[in-house]
């Protein structure tokens, strides 16, 4: 714990060379996008754990980075799905009306919450998701 905790406190170690990016970030972005495209889930579920456990980011920073990376990833997917005529605009508009208000609340909470509580919340969330996926096999 202590070794990882101190590495996390310092944040990411290497300053990258590929397009100014840490190669691990590059790999995480591609993996997040890949799994998102493969499984139809948000890339964040993959990117957040990798950002924390592999790239050494703090939990809070990993969540913020993941949200930012989701913008271009979901934009690309929406364009592809939209071209296929699959998007239900009325449903999306109703959900989005709620979710943009919710996003402000959630992001404000993310800015304040204790690192340890955030880790616990995310761990429980992932546990629930994995059980759901195993059950729905």
């Amino acid at each position, binding site marked *: 714990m202590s070794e990882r905790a101190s590495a996390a406190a310092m944040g990411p170690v290497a300053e990258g060379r590929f*397009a100014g990016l840490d190669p691990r970030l*590059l790999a995480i*972005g*591609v*993996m997040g*996008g*890949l799994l*998102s*495209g493969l*499984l*139809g*889930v948000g*890339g964040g579920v993959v990117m957040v754990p990798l950002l924390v456990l592999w790239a050494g980011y703090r939990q809070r*920073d990993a*969540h*913020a*980075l*993941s*949200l*930012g*990376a*989701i*913008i*271009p*990833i*979901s*934009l690309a*997917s929406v364009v592809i*799905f939209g071209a296929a005529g*699959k*998007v*239900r605009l009325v*449903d*999306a508009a*109703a*959900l*989005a009306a*709620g979710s*943009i208000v*919710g*996003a402000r*609340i*959630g*992001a*404000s909470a*993310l*800015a304040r919450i204790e690192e*340890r509580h955030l*880790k*616990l*919340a995310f*761990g*429980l*969330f*992932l*546990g629930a998701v994995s*059980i759901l996926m*195993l059950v*729905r*096999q």
Partner: protein
Amino acid sequence: MTGIVLVAALVAFGLFTGAGAGLLGVGGGIMMVPFLTLAAGVPQHAAEATSLLVVLPTAIVASVVLQRRGIGNLSLALRFGVLGAGGGALGALLALALPAHVLRLVFALFLAGVAVRLVRDALPR
């Protein structure tokens, strides 16, 4: 559910999902897709497409809030996200060629392992 009741349910569920997404750093699709298919009766592909269109503004709003508070690094996130978008296109093509249930199983086990590790790290000792 139909008409105004469905719209109200969608707005309420959107509020819940958006808050979860903003806190947990995910898009929220993993919560929205089952809701759309099970509660609103939307077919799987349409549910994924619709949820992705909601994920986009949710992630933008959350990112703007976090950027204002100086948390994370939005330009860095956007840069590796653009590379991720390329991966997403590749993933969609691969999904057509690979057995989906194997992928889901491997992915679920990966998430379960991470969940155990994070909860263990977070618990007081």
